[in-house]
């Protein structure tokens, strides 16, 4: 040993080196498993295509009617055709409106005039949530945001719907 003052002792140096090498090995081991585990977060979300919901524009009236259809869904290794539904009507300008039936309070399913006490409104049976015809939530009832609106397109007189888009609270 020289007379110079040693900032790092031999023991400390060995400890640091061993910890470093060990850490490097552990990190090398864990990189792939962790990358695999977080893969769902990093995967690009595929925006679904618009789907023919089986109703022609002529059939749509100014009274909301329930439309049911199925979409093709790929969930990892599992392919299925879950059903979707929407309340569809033409507003006063003749524009088609397709509302998601999922209550924005806690996710129950709403129906047009679902309660005899609340005509001309969407009604949620779970907690008496109410929405106006355009989907706006009625103040004083549980939901705080309007019903979501489906992406839509008319092709050859047939209605095609995509994903429901959430709307901001009134």
């Amino acid at each position, binding site marked *: 040993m020289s007379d110079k003052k040693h900032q790092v002792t031999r023991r400390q140096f060995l400890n640091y080196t061993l910890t470093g090498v060990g850490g490097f090995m552990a990190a090398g081991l864990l990189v792939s498993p962790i990358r695999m*585990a977080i893969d769902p977060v990093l995967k690009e979300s595929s925006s679904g295509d618009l789907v023919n919901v089986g109703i022609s524009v002529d059939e749509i009236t100014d009274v909301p009617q329930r439309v049911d259809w199925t979409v093709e869904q790929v969930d*990892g290794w599992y392919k299925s055709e879950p059903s979707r539904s929407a309340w569809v009507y033409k507003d006063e300008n003749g524009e088609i409106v397709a509302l998601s039936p999922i209550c924005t309070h806690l996710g129950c399913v709403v129906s047009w005039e679902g309660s005899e006490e609340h005509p001309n409104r969407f009604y949620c049976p779970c907690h008496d949530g109410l929405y106006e015809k355009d989907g706006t939530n009625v103040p004083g009832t549980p939901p705080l945001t309007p019903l979501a609106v489906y992406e839509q397109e008319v092709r050859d007189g047939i209605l095609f719907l995509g994903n429901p888009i959430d709307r901001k609270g009134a």
Partner: protein
Amino acid sequence: MLQKIYDWIDERVDVTPIWRDIADHEVPEHVNPAHHFSAFVYCFGGLTFFVVVIQILSGMFLTMYYVPDIENAWKSVYYLQTEVAHGQIVRGMHHWGASVVIVMLLLHTLRVFFQGAYKKPRELNWMVGVLLFFVMLGLGFTGYLLPWDNKAYFATQVGLEIAQQVPFIGDELKVLLAGDENIVGAQTLTRFFAIHVFFLPAILFALLAVHFILIRRQGISGPL
């Protein structure tokens, strides 16, 4: 910061002696490859354990994607292999590691055998080691079925027939493993999965603990 956290815990539960008992002791000269290169043969046991750690880690992560069901097992493995980033690598680690474990285990056993390190007072640890060997073979056998491809299926078919050759209880043993008298199917797969990820690892951990405690108690056998 870390030192402070350590001190805080140490002050309350006195962990330093535990650490000293587990790891802070000198490696005898005849076991240290830095002194005698031929001492690398003493590394095989540690290497076996290292690969076992890899198996446990990669296995834990694989269960995030794998389903033990005849409809979906193969599909989930295929999805993991082809669609999930690094999925191929993690399954590769588990696949190749399974073979490497057996190789290391064999080298470790050969070293202990030819050095006579199993002799008194270490016979008990030899027996525990043999049990560990059987547990490893069991893990290999049960894991082989899980991808549910043709190779896995027919290998298990053969394996079950081997189990059936056991005197007296062979037939019952086969049904116990397969979950059905005639079919190698849905119930076999869930059974093998449960044995592979819960039962055998639990036994493995217990035996490993005994194996290591005995080494610390008795020390490493002396030089030849």
